[in-house]
């Protein structure tokens, strides 16, 4: 599959939503995209730029594939990421950059990759060694994924999440699932260039709620909406 490319979308008269040339299918995040938007791969995404010290970006367009297998299975061993951790692993050998493998459950791994790479990840997970039963499910469309970045991120998150976010309990590379503002949420501490950053994902239909709640929680800390960062694509 080719690298996802960014293209300008056209907008039909009287319709604020972009369309792709030739009526090709256009995928949308469950979260409203702050303008300006563009189409990346098959997805309509925001390309908003912000210099705010605390920012929230919608990453729902990223590929997300879930592997279920016994923790003692060969496949699990091949991934090498235990429950509760998140590491970059080259699951898809042909990709230039590794994918983020999240140990999201005792027998569950969530692999996050660039836009439109779910089929490759899917195939790579099915091809992991071993005969143990396993289940590989593409949840790209089933999850809303956002990234909250900034030094104030732990304090903002602490207004809506009961988890101990201090360094000694939730260091970079830690993954867990808990309640965030009343919704079961996967939380991954994944710092960006030394700045504290969290990935949060929930089942898709709660995405807008999660996004709105984080924006409100961060309001006094000066949060701003960011577009899909180039390096995530």
């Amino acid at each position, binding site marked *: 599959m080719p690298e996802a490319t960014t293209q300008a979308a056209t907008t039909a008269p009287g319709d604020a*939503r972009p369309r792709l040339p030739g*009526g*090709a*299918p*256009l*995928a*949308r*995040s*469950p979260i409203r995209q702050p303008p300006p938007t563009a189409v990346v791969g*098959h*997805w309509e995404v925001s390309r908003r730029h912000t210099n705010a010290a605390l920012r929230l970006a919608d990453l*729902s*367009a990223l590929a997300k594939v*879930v592997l*279920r297998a016994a923790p003692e299975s060969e496949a699990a061993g091949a991934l090498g990421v235990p429950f509760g951790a998140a590491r970059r692993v080259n699951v898809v050998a042909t990709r230039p950059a590794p994918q983020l493998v999240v140990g999201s459950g005792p027998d569950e791994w969530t692999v996050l990759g660039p836009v439109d790479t779910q089929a490759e990840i899917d195939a790579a997970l099915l091809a992991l060694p071993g005969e143990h*039963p*396993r*289940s590989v*499910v*593409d*949840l*790209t*469309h*089933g*999850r809303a994924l956002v990234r909250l970045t900034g030094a104030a991120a732990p304090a903002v998150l*602490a*207004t*809506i*999440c*009961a*988890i*101990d*976010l*201090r360094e000694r*309990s939730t260091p970079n590379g830690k993954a867990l699932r808990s309640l965030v*503002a*009343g*919704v079961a949420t996967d939380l991954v501490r994944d710092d960006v260039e030394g700045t504290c950053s969290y990935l949060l994902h929930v*089942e*898709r*239909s*709660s995405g*807008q*709620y999660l996004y709105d*709640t984080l924006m*409100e*929680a961060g309001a*006094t800390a000066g949060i701003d909406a960011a577009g899909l960062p180039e390096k995530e694509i």
Partner: protein
Amino acid sequence: MRPVARRATPTSGRLGPRPGEVIDRARPLRFTFDGRPYLAYEGDTIVSALLAAGESVFSRSFKYHRPRGVLSATFFDPNCTVQVGEEPNVRGAHRRVRNGDVVSAQNVWPSLRYDVKAANQAVGRFLSAGFYYKTFIKPEPLWPAYQQVLKRFAAGGVVGADDPHGYYDHRYAHVDVVVAGGGPAGIAAALGAAEAGAAVLLVEEEPHLGGHLRYGGPEALRLLGELRQELADAKGIEVLTDSVATGRYDGNWIAVHQRSVPGATERLVKVRAGALVVAAGLIERPYVFAGNDLPGVMLSTAAARLVNLYAVRPGTRAVVLSANAEGDAVAALLAAAGVEVAATLDARRAETVVAARGHGHLSSVETSQGRVVEADLLVTATGWTAPTSLLNMAGVRPTYDEAAARFVVGAEPSPGVFATGGLVGDASPEGLVAHGRAVGARAAAAAGCGKGAVLPELSPGPHPALFRSTTHGFVDYSEDVSSKDVFQAAAEGYDSPELAKRYTTATMGPSQGKLELVNFLGVLAEATGRSIGELGTTTWRPPYAPVSLGALAGRPHEPVRYSPIQPYHEAMGAKPLVAAQWIRPDHYGDPDAEVRRVREAVGLIDVTPLGKLLLVGKDTPALLNQLYVNKWSALRVGAVRYGVMCAEDGVVFDDGVCGRLGEDRYLMSTTSSGAGAVWEWVERWLQTAGRHLDVYVTPLTTAYASINVAGPASRTLLSRLVEGVDLAPEAFPYMAVREGSVAGVERCVLWRIGFTGELSYELHVPAGYGLFVWESLLDAGSDLGVGPFGIEAQRIMRLEKGHLIVGQDTDGLTQALGAGLDWLVKLDKADFVGKPELVWQANREDYDRLVALVPTDERTVPPEASQLLGIDGDIVGRITSSRHSPTLRHPICLARLAHHLATPGTVVRIHLPDGRDVPARVAETLAAYDSEGVKLRA
């Protein structure tokens, strides 16, 4: 009823600068009290500013409407509760004046000065404890009228229906040690814990740390300065002032109420702490004697606070009753501040106050020596109450120390819970600091930081047991309960603390016994001839201090869920339907027209909330056999089957379909409301009895946008957009599943099923493409008359078709055979969930049946839940679903009906909510529309 005279010469006023004052004389503020303007300085409380201006009455009491002034000058002062703007019950002796505050007195009518309800004082002797219970007994019809009058006596402030909801915040915190109380012992405990490496949260109720050091002498201020410097240099201590630890719950889960926060009205901090140190200090106890509630009678700590913190002179000529060094010091302080100390009564030498006299304000004091001393200030220092609330919440039972005349606790009363300061014992400030520091270190050690420290000795010193003088006076100011009431309660047999408390309401008012409890116990002990130790005490419940509903609630967090097609529904102005967390389109303006569109052409409905579970693994049929009442072993790839799940009691729990997508891949659907519960049910079986099964379950409910395309033209419409699937009836028959692409979107699942009774296809498309596919379908089918339909149209059509809705046409006791599912239940399976109950049900006759009813009067659509009546008027069933059928043009109903009547052709009586009865006939089949199922198989 006499008005309180405005005094020509105010007894109180502002003093010159004091070394520890907390007011900023350079920053004057303006506010009004009962409509009159007043000046304050930044840092003044409402009450200190009013006292400085010569006012001395701030409220009227609850029952007798007696004028009341300052008593303790703290948050818990029962006499200083005022309304500030829209905020009721503000503690005027604690709340700092803000510029422009509009303050008014509460519980006065028509005004603070002239309060007609004060007539109650004249007949006070009849308003004894429990007087409510002894009168108004007859005649009963008049009790409500009496009650309306009583309600006018409610003591609180005012709230408005449309008062704005402030911005209330919540925050979680995780620390090693919480220290509740920022006096010398509390500050030292925080320092001791931090030195051991602990993360500490130090919480102080007042705006400044220091406790009693703040209003002590020069030595106290010097020590406070040192402690503050040490705090400033320490690492790992977060200090919250004007904040109070309101509750300690299981697992050292501690609620801290921040009363002033930048950017928010208030904030609730929910803290998980390794250890809790309670350093709440001591609360000074009032003394009970006649007239002890007159304005001008106050506690020694109140006088010290007023003079030293706010530079307010509390009176001009004082009598001091002292039983301790603190009281002696206040006598000296008053004299130094220019108050004439007319008499000092030493309670340690059995000198006491017999009565305080005055009209609206203290004017003279009668002493035990028989003297009557003119005075406008009476200061009492008769002992202390240990506010052990947080410790009580941790299950600690303080013991009563007779010699010290107060309750005490040890320094380590419970695992993870510590106490220091006055709660534990008496010492010099330095002694309290030493103890606090050691307790802090030990608390840190309990939380895993450091090695602890050796605990210095701290125990309470002796103190005279002073509760009541020789006269009766108020025990509970906010409830207007006198010592006489307590005596009477005891005499009547309400002689345990709990019964006497409930009977007299003592300690049940806004200060919850902080000031009153020990006096109440002391008086009850006197009345019953027992000691306080024998009586025991009542339990202090959370919260330690009252918390606003806004702060408890925080910002509203009510999760809502939307389908990917929601932008379309909104654009079309669909009427929203709230279904649990989902917001769904009920209809788009005309549900009947939506029905006709589906019956005659083709319609689309967004059914995304339908639960969808992907089951992967070779043992999936075994799992399905266990969870569903029917059989699954023979399901071919590409086939779909309807299934019903029961709980172990045989009660119908959920229904849906399950299709076999591939060799080891199955997609199960559930009801929208049951999506979460069925997922858990499946997981539960797979993790317990079914651990050996090779099945993984993954919820895909919102991974797919689900669109049902229904109507005779649905195949034509789909044929224009679907690729990779042969839509011919033979190739893709009813109850089949296929995978293919729709409008160019790959990996879609298509089931040929439907709830409406028409030829229909349920499309599950990757959710991000949901809106795209929906709009593509509308575009492609415009010539076919395609349009959307909502939940209401679907409900009508499923009812025409006789499909049940679990939870509506069944209830919490409906077992499968009572839901018309006899044909589905396979009792010859070895096991399935709920099987034994269904076997037994099959051997009975007496359960209600699900039937279709047709009212014979075609104009009457019986409301759902209308009852069905038998010949003798008894209830024999009820309507569970009812609509007018736009297709059949008559009402159609489903009903639960007693078995003996549930035969086709029987006529039953429907009792309508408007009182009319209409007959209805039991139909042959549940389906009123296409009962043969020809259309959906087309």
